[in-house]
């Protein structure tokens, strides 16, 4: 409790002094003395330049050094590489405190719950630490405070360009798996997450959106990108079984800018207007193969001859599951259409020996009416064996008041009213 209070105090101190945002990271705006909109159209959505920057370990793909305005602190001259192994390999650390903060203020209006409303101010504070150690290592960590909980949601270190430039990067820590998916929760424009990111079959079971502890190899070359990893599989820092869960993801981009921007003049895609445009098609496929140890405690109370006896029994079982998915993104001038399909199989998610298949899919369209105004429409469905199908329509509007400040107005409507409460949510988000 003491530790938690200390963390909260730290967060509050940072709120006053600095700030960072979950996956829109003003730290880099400071480092390069550039606008958020170099990398984001409407934050946290990335422009093609920003996407290449992210994939390259938060470094500008060609000639990062030339763009850095905040001089890093040398931890040994570059020429010390010639002295290794008789000296420590040189590196740099950021010349500034690499912090950013995102604040989310939220207003909820639950239409189906007697029009209940709530000011949820603040809904969330996200403190981010991100930067590079020279060009070899990238680090990212995030502390998130929501309600009275403070948690480290992300914390990873990536060794860039192992043996082959761009093609082999090794990430270790607690991170977003398969982060190349274009509808990634951390870069979404809507308040709600889409069906394939968010659905789970068993209690505390796998969700695509959950960060995981483990290791990942990832890389990109021309129009191909990949990620393969091994993680604990619980969505928590700890592991509930001895097995590690493997996963993979492969992306192919047709037309538009290649992932590594090969064939481009340096800075050619640093467009001053409509920098979100990159007429292209991106196709992806992924798989995740997990095992989850589950348990259920049953409390039985019996009364015999006026004597009440309570007994508890705990049953434990293991659920082997797999998820396979495909997705696509089409960028066509101001229109950005994404769709994803996820198939799941759980061999025993409820401890009754019954196998359950599940399917989830969504299609979402975003349109840049203006650089500061992006309406979004999404339809999604979740189908799980033996349960009611859940279908939803999400209509959202992102209004970018400033490069680092925006409002989102979003309505969430269930096709079948028994599946959930229709609601309207308004967010005010700002990062610095």
């Amino acid at each position: 409790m003491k530790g938690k209070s200390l963390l909260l105090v730290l967060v509050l101190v940072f709120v006053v002094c600095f700030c960072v945002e979950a996956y829109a990271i003003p730290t880099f705006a400071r480092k390069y003395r550039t606008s958020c909109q170099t990398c984001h159209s409407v934050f946290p959505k990335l422009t093609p330049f920003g996407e290449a920057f992210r994939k390259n370990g938060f470094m500008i793909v060609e000639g990062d050094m030339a763009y850095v305005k905040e001089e890093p602190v040398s931890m040994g001259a570059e020429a010390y590489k010639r002295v290794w192994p008789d000296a420590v390999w040189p590196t740099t650390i950021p010349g500034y405190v690499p912090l950013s903060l995102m604040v989310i203020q939220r207003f909820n209006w639950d239409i189906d719950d007697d029009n209940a409303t709530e000011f949820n101010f603040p809904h969330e504070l996200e403190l981010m630490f991100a930067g590079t150690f020279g060009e070899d290592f990238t680090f990212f960590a995030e502390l998130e405070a929501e309600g009275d909980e403070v948690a480290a949601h992300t914390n990873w270190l990536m060794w860039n360009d192992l043996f082959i430039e761009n093609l082999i990067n090794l990430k270790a820590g607690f991170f977003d798996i398969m982060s190349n998916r274009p509808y990634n929760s951390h870069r979404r424009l809507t308040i709600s997450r889409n069906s394939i990111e968010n659905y789970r079959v068993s209690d505390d079971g796998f969700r695509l959106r959950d960060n995981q502890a483990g290791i990942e190899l990832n890389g990109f070359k021309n129009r191909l990108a990949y990620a393969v990893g091994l993680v604990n599989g619980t969505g928590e820092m700890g592991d509930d079984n001895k097995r590690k869960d493997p996963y993979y993801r492969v992306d192919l981009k047709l037309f538009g800018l290649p992932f590594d921007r090969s064939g481009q003049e340096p800075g050619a895609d640093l467009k001053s207007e409509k920098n979100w445009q990159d007429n292209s098609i991106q196709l992806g496929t992924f798989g995740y193969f997990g095992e989850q140890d589950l348990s259920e405690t049953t409390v039985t109370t019996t009364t015999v001859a006026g004597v009440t006896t309570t007994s508890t029994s705990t049953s434990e079982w293991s659920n082997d599951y797999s998820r396979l998915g495909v997705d696509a993104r089409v960028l066509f001038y101001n229109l950005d259409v994404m769709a994803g399909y996820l198939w799941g199989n759980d061999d025993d998610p409820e401890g009754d020996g019954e196998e359950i298949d599940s399917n989830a899919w969504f299609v979402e369209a975003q349109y840049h009416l203006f650089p500061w105004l992006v309406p979004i429409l999404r339809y999604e469905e979740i189908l799980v064996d033996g349960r009611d199908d859940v279908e939803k329509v999400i209509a959202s509007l992102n209004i970018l008041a400033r490069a680092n400040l925006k409002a989102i107005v979003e309505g969430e409507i269930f096709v079948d009213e028994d599946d959930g409460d229709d609601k309207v949510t308004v967010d005010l988000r700002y990062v610095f």
Partner: protein
Amino acid sequence: MRNILIGLFLVIFTGTCMAGGIKGKVSTAKIKSPSGILVYIEKIDGKEFPPPAEHLVMDQVKLVFIPRVLPVLKGAAVDFVNSDDVKHNVFGVGSDDFDLGTWTKGIVKSYTFNKLGDVAILCNVHPEMEAFVVVLQNPYFGLTDAGGNYEIKDVPPGKYKLKTWHDRLKPATKDVEVAGDTVEVGFEI
């Protein structure tokens, strides 16, 4: 006697009057400033170039080597000066390895560079300090200014390979022919 005079005239004429120059601009987007890029003629065959009798100087001021890049002719001696109030060390790694030790302000130590190639100059007291001595076969070289411009003067006529050097950039090479005028050669690296 007349022939000797004519011969002398021709030597002087071809050696100096006919000498040309090379100038141009080096452009790069990979480093912040295009200054300090060395442009040099890789080799001039059949000629020996005596090193300068005077020592060149590399100073250490406020924990920085000055200059950062020092091109020298093979056989040239460099005086390493410590102008700081703190101790400095100087050691070299590269085409030539040496360690001059550690000394205080006011002391000067010299080293003669007899091996072609680049030598990183480091200080083991202050690991962030670095400089480079680039040892060349001939005296035809120039360093770029803040705009990336360089000029090499008094180049004897001939065909050469013109190269660039920078510690963080890949070298570039271009063929160049010098007659009597100044030739423009640009690089994009």
